[in-house]
């Protein structure tokens, strides 16, 4: 499963894309738990959303290799 990274999450993780092979990650909530553990400084952000197929996803929404997944740290456009 590939995860696109932007802004501060790109800088924290140090890549433009993260590849996760752990098959136990099947929901947005599980993905966030995994990220918080692997990259503790992500916890310090004001918020962290996950986009699945270009749409804001809920914690219970599924994630998998067929989805376009991205981390959305706090936005600051405008």
């Amino acid at each position: 499963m590939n995860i696109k990274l932007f802004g501060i999450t790109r800088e924290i993780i140090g890549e433009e894309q993260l590849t996760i092979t752990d098959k136990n990650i099947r929901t947005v909530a599980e993905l966030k738990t995994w990220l918080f553990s692997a990259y503790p400084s992500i916890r310090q952000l004001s918020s962290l959303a996950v986009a699945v197929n270009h749409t804001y996803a809920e914690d219970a929404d599924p994630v998998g290799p067929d989805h376009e997944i991205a981390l959305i740290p706090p936005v600051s456009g405008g």
Partner: protein
Amino acid sequence: MLIKLVDDIDLNEAYHYLRHPGAGAVNLFIGTVRDQGQGKAVTRLSFEAYEEMALREMQKIGAGALEKWPLKKLLIVHTKGEKQVGEPVVVVGVSAPHRDVSFEACRHLIDTLKQRVPIWKKEFYTDQSSWINAHP
């Protein structure tokens, strides 16, 4: 509805797009690079966008506004890349029969854009830089 990400804002294009014979009112909001942020002197800005999703969110915001108000035209244009102090970074605007609606809808566009559209601003100061809104 004109929705796009551009390198530079063209205000004349924006106004000409919004003109409509049934509109008596046009409201335009332009966000520009301010010389101060976080209490420090800003030297420049950089915007990073998740482009496909940003465009999709901008389209949703526009469609929502067209449903809520009797607008004639609507635009949301955001820049990407590096910007200097004083340069415009976003323009949102509407045309409507009357001014009440034009102010209300234009305000809604910029407020909602700032809440939802996946674009990130990095401010550069003389000695460091910061992703805006990232931390509490």
